[in-house]
Structure formats: structure tokens, C-alpha cells
């Protein structure tokens, strides 16, 4: 069994990000994806395996070919992952501002 991969480690690699961009516009086979890169085919296969394991890519069988397409839900998770952290600071700073406005008017 393969270990579950960290999504953020997966997208830290520039080739894997390029693959995601490529597949985002249309479903492609492993061969078609590999033809866009100078890297060796097994290296591209390894990247596809990692992206599939962390569910950023999904496979779909079409006849004898396997097509890769992006998983929109998982992609959105990455886009949103910073939002709770931003909210946490936004809440704190809103509080800071309210406290100091009160402080200012008391003086």
C-alpha cells in the first residue's frame, strides 16, 4: 500500500505544478502529458502517481487508454487552505482596532 502523500509537498515540485496546469484545461493520457516535458517518461509517471495518490489528479478509463484529469474539489482545498489562517489574524486585528478605539476615546 502506498503512504498517503502531503498535498503541499506534491505541489512544491515545479514539474508537478506544470502537469496540473496542463491537465487543468483538458484530460490527457500519460503519454500525451510526458510529450510536453523533456524529462524521462518514468519520471513523469512517478509525478503522475504522486499527484494521483494525493487526489489532485483522477484517472478515467476510456477504452484502452487511461486519461488524467484534475480533481476540482481537491484543487479548491489548496486555494482555500490559507483562508482560515488569514481569518485568525483578521479576527485578532479587528479586536485590536476595536480595543484601541475605545482606549483612545477614554483618554
Amino acid at each position: 500500500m502506498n503512504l498517503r502523500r502531503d498535498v503541499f509537498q506534491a505541489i512544491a515540485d515545479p514539474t508537478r505544478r506544470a502537469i496540473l496546469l496542463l491537465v487543468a484545461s483538458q484530460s490527457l493520457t500519460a503519454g500525451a502529458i510526458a510529450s510536453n516535458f523533456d524529462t524521462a517518461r518514468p519520471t513523469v509517471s512517478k509525478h503522475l502517481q504522486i499527484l494521483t495518490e494525493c487526489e489532485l489528479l483522477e484517472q478515467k478509463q476510456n477504452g484502452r487508454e487511461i486519461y488524467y484529469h484534475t480533481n476540482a474539489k481537491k484543487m479548491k482545498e489548496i486555494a482555500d487552505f490559507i483562508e482560515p489562517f488569514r481569518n485568525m489574524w483578521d479576527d485578532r486585528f479587528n479586536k485590536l482596532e476595536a480595543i484601541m478605539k475605545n482606549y483612545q476615546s477614554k483618554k
Partner: protein
Amino acid sequence: MERKTKINAEDGKQDLMITREFDLPLELLFKACSDPEIIEQWMGTKVLKFESKKHGSYQFETTDAKGNVVFRANGVIHEFSPNKKITRTFEMENTSFGVQLELVEFERLTDDTSKLNMRVIYESVTHRNQVLQLPFAQGINMAHNRLQDIVNKLK
């Protein structure tokens, strides 16, 4: 005026920038970030110690309703320039997040408005991403706890 907090975290880097504009004069913004009693109120944690000076140190602690310590953090202050800059370290105790370096700059925009620029540098890209994901993970835990409460009531 754009008052929303902005976070700029570039892919594959081990730092991030938090910026926010305040409807407050520079002096008040700085006071809010250097007076332990005020920090306590907006950070939502108890301030055990806070020495507002070069080579000073600080300690935060949060306890739950039963008095158990749920969060403890500490750091040292490297630079303390009133109304300009605070450079300090920050470390959450008993976690794997490592230590972070915080460079907090205070900027006067107008007589009544100011801006905070906080650059945080982590030990590695992985450490940074773990901290970024922390509130996300906590949010999920909180949802689980709420679910647990509801389930318990049904029993």
C-alpha cells in the same frame, strides 16, 4: 481604505508576510503590540511575561475552563524600536512547529491611520506550511467536537 488583513505566502518559500491597515494612529497601534495588558485582550491568550525592550523575553499561556494548559508559547525580543519595529522570535512549546523569526514593522499612513507589516520566517517550507494549516486543522477538530456534543446529547 483597505482594512482587510492580507497574507502573502509564496509557493515553496519558508516565510510569509502579514499586512494590515488600521484606522488608528501609529502610536496606538504600537501600544497595542507592546503593552502586555492590551496584547492579552486581542491575542486571546494570557500574557505571563512581556518585557518590551531589547533582549527582553515574553511568554503566553492559554488554559481551558478546567485550568488545563492548552497553549504555551515564548520568545525573545531582538530589537525594540518604539513606533518603528519589533524583531522577535516565537515558539509554541511542546509542538513540532519549530521556532519562527518575526519582523514587525509599524508604518504611519496619515495622522489617524497606520499599517502593520509582519514578516515571519520559519525553519523550513514544511514548517511554514504546517503552521498555515494549523487553524484549518483546528477548525476541523472543532467541527468534530461539536458533532461529538450533538451525538452525546442524542444518547
